[in-house]
């Protein structure tokens, strides 16, 4: 439970030109959609290269890479083993060990899927690691997205590191009371319970206090809100967002039309 890698952090302003958060989101989303719709290995590889390059330029590569590795390595390994060794539809057999057959079709399918999923994942991760969460929340509120969604998003991203450090404190406290994690499933379950119960109990208690404070400040109200954070949204970027969304929709329509025809 001590997972910490890959939490998108506040971003330093290393990019020469800072885009509106929704423009970045539209760019990442449409890139992922177009790559999936195109299902083309060269395009997927180009997107992977582009995403890594953009992240390097933006100064987020060092934080992005561990997160990407944590997500993509198990997925890619799973796909390569699954399709590389067991692909009953494959005809060209490259090697065989008992029921496992390495086929050219299987390897090619696995490689295409790995590239396609990696491109979509990296495009979205570049957005997550470059966006400023307060700006995104403010931009969503301006566009009429409920404050509650923005609260859940911002609160989760800020709670993650807080809860991992709290869990560490609980573990230390339980160890001070004599908790020793021994081998064996039952011991581990008991140790898990000794840490999880105080953690969840404290979190529920905290949430109740926070809820009362927020309610007293009109959190449940449905009227218009005033935001003190101004996120510039140039006209060019508004048009760019429309173009990106249209491009993604066109790619989906083209793929569905080709599949139907």
């Amino acid at each position, binding site marked *: 439970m001590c997972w910490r890698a890959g939490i998108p952090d506040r971003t330093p302003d290393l990019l020469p030109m800072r885009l509106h958060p929704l423009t970045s989101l539209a760019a990442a989303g449409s890139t992922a959609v177009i790559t999936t719709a195109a299902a083309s290995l060269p395009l997927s590889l180009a997107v992977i290269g582009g995403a890594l390059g953009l992240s390097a330029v933006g100064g987020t590569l060092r934080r992005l890479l561990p997160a990407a590795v944590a997500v993509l390595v198990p997925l890619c390994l*799973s*796909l390569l083993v699954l399709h590389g060794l067991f692909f009953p539809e494959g005809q060209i057999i490259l090697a065989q060990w008992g029921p496992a057959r390495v086929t050219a079709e299987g390897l090619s399918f696995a490689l295409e899927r790995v590239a396609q999923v990696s491109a979509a994942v990296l495009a979205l991760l570049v957005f997550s690691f470059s966006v400023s969460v307060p700006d995104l929340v403010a931009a969503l509120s301006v566009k009429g997205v409920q404050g509650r969604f923005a609260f859940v998003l911002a609160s989760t991203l800020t709670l993650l590191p807080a809860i991992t450090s709290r869990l560490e404190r609980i573990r230390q406290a339980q160890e001070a009371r004599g908790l020793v994690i021994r081998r064996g499933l039952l011991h581990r379950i008991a140790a898990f*319970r000794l840490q999880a119960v105080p953690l969840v109990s404290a979190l529920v208690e905290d949430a109740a206090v926070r809820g009362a404070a927020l309610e007293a400040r009109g959190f449940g109200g449905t009227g218009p809100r005033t935001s003190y954070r101004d996120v510039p949204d140039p006209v060019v970027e508004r048009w760019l967002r429309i173009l990106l969304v249209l491009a993604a929709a066109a790619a989906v329509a083209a793929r569905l039309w080709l599949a139907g025809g």
Partner: protein
Amino acid sequence: MSSPSLTLPSPAPAAARKRRLLEILGALAIAGTYIYLVLNQPADITGGPGSASALIALSGFLVGAVLLIVAVLPALPTSTVVLIPVALVLNIVLGQFVGSTLVPFYLDAIGTVLIAVLAGPAAGAATGALSSIVWSFFNPTVLPFAAGAALIGCLAGVAARHGLFRRFYLAPVAGFATGIIGGVVSAPVAAFVFGGTSGVATGAIVSAFRSMGDTLLAAITKQALISDPMDKAIVFTVVAVLVYALPRRATLQFLFVRWHRVLAGRNSGQDS
């Protein structure tokens, strides 16, 4: 805290009707997408670029999940909304940790089921869908599973409402049944969007079925039927342990727990 505000106007019936409509549309989008994928079983999953099916699975399930969030989130009391980020963090931290181990389980729904037991099926569904969307910020592969996560939250709430958390031994049974439904719904996503599973251990199980000549969708569905029921039985049991370990004051603040007598021996403080 879960009582309506005394100073703010109550929501109009028209807004409630609109939310109900969105809920129904969301459920229809999810059900329609699933039925389309299973009935058509696009043969191109392994034969060519199966991205048309991937796009249908992605868009149908995502639209459904977003509609559910839009419908449910505004209607939730503040005490539940503030608990959702906590549930999301529990899902993400545990799910990411277990997903990286060689165990063929996920354990990524403990927070969702916890909310469902404390605040009901609608809150559970919204938490499940939100969990996938927020988690996708740093693990985009979970995004397509938003509808499945919403379904698990909803079913957990229904189980709690019908008293399956009042007897400790019934919780894993409810989890097992929820896992069967959740697994069957999630399998087409794994098959069409990823062409496999995202974990090494679950991938090994799919490989075993593929080596017996199963189609990809059949192999992934069978794997889901092995992993998901066990996984959800564990999750429901863990949540039962957690909710009974919580102080009465904490659980009784939720109207759903008081109103539907969700937990055994905890209703002496009933004030509704």
